[in-house]
């Protein structure tokens, strides 16, 4: 309570005593500025004028220092009224420090929230952009997948066809292999086993014939030895047919010489071989391949071509090897033969496979009146140069 004339405090309630930290006695007779309220003189007088004029004054938010110097925020409401015919001023001071703090915290939280929201918004924008981009990619890949699917479908069909062809080829090879095995088995039995049985019989006879004279004994032994020689020759022949030892022991040219000489002797063919010494620097795999191609080609000539001449040529043209087997016999339809289900076709495919395996290629030319030319071309890298 204030006296409007002296502006001094006339009464103070316990709340304000506690708030300001002054005792009631200390507060009585003091002016407001002395307890740290409305310290500004001009503002102070202005406040009293407004109070007298309007009958009340209200400050939402006044700074105030307590006795201990603590900063407080207060709400200050002041009313002027008559009490028992005398003007009095009642000031209601309420501590809003806590409220203010909460409000500040709230504002900070709101600001934080706003910042957060803004961040989120930015994030959303970025994410949206990303999603859009990803969507585009997805669309593109969906498109390409469907295109790819179509391509793969075609490839798949092609591969299925190829697989069928391969399967057919594999079966053919197996069947030819089986035929060859049957032949070897039969020949082994006829030529080797029978001879060995014969040897055994002779030996048995020798064991029993102790009464034989030395000459007869020698004759029997000599006969037995002939049988042994015969079986050695037969086994030797088998081994040669399976894999010519001369190719491993001496090389391609001696192997071709040996082979072609035998063919010429057994058929009516006249064979010319032109080759060069340097071919032996080729690795054994490629030389084996060349040998097998010559063998297959010449076998075909003997079997099918009714030719009188075969020209086998191995030449070197800069960095390639060209191998030709040319005959003057009757021609054959190359494409049809390659498509037919015959052993000749298998032989041709086998040659092609062998040559492609070592990085070369095979061509077959056959024309009426011109005979057939099988030509293999492959890169020439000698063992030493590699």
């Amino acid at each position, binding site marked *: 309570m204030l006296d409007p004339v002296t502006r001094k405090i006339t009464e103070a309630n316990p709340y304000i005593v506690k708030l300001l930290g002054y005792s009631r006695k200390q507060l009585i007779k003091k002016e407001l500025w002395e307890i740290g309220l409305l310290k500004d003189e001009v503002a102070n007088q202005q406040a009293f004028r407004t109070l007298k004029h309007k009958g009340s004054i209200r400050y939402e938010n006044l700074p105030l220092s307590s006795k201990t110097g603590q900063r407080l925020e207060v709400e200050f409401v002041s009313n002027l009224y008559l009490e028992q015919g005398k003007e009095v001023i009642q000031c209601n001071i309420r501590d809003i420090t806590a409220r203010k703090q909460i409000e500040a915290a709230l504002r900070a939280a709101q600001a934080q929230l706003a910042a957060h929201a803004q961040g989120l918004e930015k994030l959303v924008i970025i994410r949206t952009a990303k999603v859009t981009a990803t969507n585009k990619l997805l669309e593109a890949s969906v498109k390409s997948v469907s295109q790819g699917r179509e391509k793969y479908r075609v490839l798949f069909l092609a591969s299925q066809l190829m697989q069928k062809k391969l399967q057919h080829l594999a079966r053919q090879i197996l069947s030819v292999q089986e035929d060859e095995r049957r032949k070897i088995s039969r020949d082994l039995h006829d030529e080797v086993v029978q001879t060995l049985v014969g040897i055994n019989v002779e030996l048995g006879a020798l064991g029993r014939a102790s009464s034989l004279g030395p000459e007869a004994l020698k004759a029997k032994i000599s006969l037995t*030895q002939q049988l042994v020689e015969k079986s050695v020759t037969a086994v030797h022949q088998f081994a040669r047919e399976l894999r010519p030892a*001369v190719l491993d022991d*001496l090389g391609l040219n001696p192997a071709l*010489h*040996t082979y072609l000489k035998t063919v010429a002797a057994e058929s009516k063919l006249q064979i*010319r071989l*032109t080759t060069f*010494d340097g071919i032996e620097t080729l690795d054994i795999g490629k030389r084996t391949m060349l040998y097998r191609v010559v063998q297959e080609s010449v076998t075909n000539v003997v079997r099918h071509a009714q030719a009188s001449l075969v*020209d086998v040529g191995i030449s070197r043209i800069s960095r390639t090897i060209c191998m030709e087997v040319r005959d003057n016999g009757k021609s054959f339809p190359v494409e049809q033969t390659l498509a037919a289900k015959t052993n000749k076709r298998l032989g041709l495919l086998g040659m092609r496979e062998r040559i492609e395996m070592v990085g070369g290629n095979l061509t077959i030319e056959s024309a009426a009146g011109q005979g057939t030319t099988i030509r293999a071309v492959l890169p020439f890298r000698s063992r030493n140069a590699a």
Partner: protein
Amino acid sequence: MKSLKKTTILIVDDSTIVRKSLCSLLKSEGHFTVVGQARNGREGVRLARTLRPDVILMDIAMPVLNGLEATREILTANPQAKVLMLSAHSDDAYIERMTAVGAFGFIEKQKVSEHLASAIDQAAKGNRFFSPAIATRMAHGKNWSRDPDGSLKPNGVRLTPRERAVIRFVAGKRTNQQIATTLGISLVAIRKHRQDVMDKLNIHETADLTHYAATHGRSGSDVTVTIF
């Protein structure tokens, strides 16, 4: 006979059975003594150097080092060594290679019991020995000819440098006149070379010569032609 020095022998063969039977065969003859046995060419070369046997019996197909290479090495170190080759292979190509590496003789493995003793005896005396069938083939076969150095060769022909030049020009589609001018020899000489080439190659048609030249015209000097 006891005063005679026994013939010392080294056996080089990768088959134990063959080594054993050769040993027993040689033992039965009485005047041979097996001084060493090797299981591959490399061992053979080493034992030949340390044992210096009178005669070496050499297989062809062996691991590590084959008999042909081993023979070559042995003779390089000691040109007086006498190597008799023993093999089941008797193709001309083998005989050619054996003589080329300097083998002193050859017996087919099938004929060993028949000929081995006399082959060793001959070799010890300094005479070459080839199985009768092989010797006949080498002497009379039209497939054989002797090089100036005495080694036998199958009758492959090599074109002379002049003939190869002619082939090259044919490949280049030159006329005889152009070739004659370029080489500076007469047209008659060119015709003769051409005919020689055609004879050597068993070619009767000009078109065939052209084709042949196109294929082999640029090949080097190591080309051999063989007619079977």
